[in-house]
């Protein structure tokens, strides 16, 4: 049984009243629901033979409904007023949060936002037969974070290329690591890889092979020697 009941039936004197009761119980508006009239009811005559109207109201998008309900309950318990905007496109559910104090919901480097996104995804996919990808965002945090990761990785790549020394970044989630790998993939001077285990896996930006090899040869012989050139050619060939 669903923990977020998405259907209810109500009796009342009129169809309108019964519908209003049902919508109120589910907490959705008329255009988010399918309304079926099971019984029109009848007024009867002088109070005799009167019959209640009966309607069945079903939420159109159960997974969206579950996500909204879940997040709404959490924010209410936190005494936060947050508007939850949802957009279901194909198999992805985009949720945007709006309100004051969004910093608390984002958390340190987005960890609270990621945690909420993960929990929401578990709940949505418990409700839905097909896998739904849940993306949670507020105040364009995701876009801003992507931009700062791009500029950070460009800056560090320059530094690594100049110094010839590798640089290890702070731990990041797979999504953020991928942004950096993809960004530096076409960089001629550096290469990237990840080290460590989740959730402490980190990206390393390292200079491409030729440079350290060249340096090593150079230092070992305390300066230029005749072997150096052939070594370099060898390393480039293989």
């Amino acid at each position, binding site marked *: 049984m669903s*923990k*977020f009941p998405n259907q209810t039936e109500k009796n009342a004197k009129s169809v309108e009243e019964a519908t209003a009761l049902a919508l109120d119980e589910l907490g959705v508006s008329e255009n988010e629901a399918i309304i079926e009239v099971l019984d029109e009811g009848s007024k009867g005559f002088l109070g005799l033979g009167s019959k209640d109207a009966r309607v069945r109201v079903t939420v159109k998008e159960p997974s969206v409904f579950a996500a909204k309900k*879940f997040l709404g*309950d*959490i924010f209410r*318990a*936190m*005494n*936060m007023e947050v508007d939850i905007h949802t957009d279901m496109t194909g198999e992805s559910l985009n949720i945007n949060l709006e309100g004051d*104090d969004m910093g*608390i*919901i984002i*958390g340190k480097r987005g*960890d*609270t936002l*990621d*945690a*909420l996104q*993960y*929990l929401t995804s*578990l*709940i949505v996919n418990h409700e839905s037969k097909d896998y739904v990808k849940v993306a949670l965002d507020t105040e364009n945090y995701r876009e801003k974070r992507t931009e700062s990761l791009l500029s950070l990785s460009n800056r560090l790549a320059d530094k690594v290329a100049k110094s010839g020394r590798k640089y290890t970044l702070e731990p990041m989630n797979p999504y953020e690591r991928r942004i950096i790998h993809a960004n530096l993939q076409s960089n001629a001077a550096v290469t990237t890889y990840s080290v460590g285990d*989740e*959730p402490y896996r980190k990206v390393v930006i390292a200079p491409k092979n030729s440079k350290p090899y060249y340096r090593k040869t150079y230092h070992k012989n305390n300066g230029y020697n005749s072997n150096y050139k052939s070594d370099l050619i060898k390393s480039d060939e293989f």
Partner: protein
Amino acid sequence: MKEVLEIIAKALVDYPEQVSVSEVDGEQSVILELKVAESDMGKVIGKQGRIAKAIRTVVKAAASRENKRVVVEILQ
């Protein structure tokens, strides 16, 4: 934040009626003890504790709004 933990746990498990949270107040921090049905343990812990970690992160955020420190313990 006790309520936040209850909401999350109840949403994740198969037996929400068996979810209970008790609050133990310490000097500096609050300890929240979460109990769920035995068969639901996996639902609140997850592979390599991933779900437990996400729950703790959200409850900590709720606590920080009340300027409190919180420890979430999942009891066997």
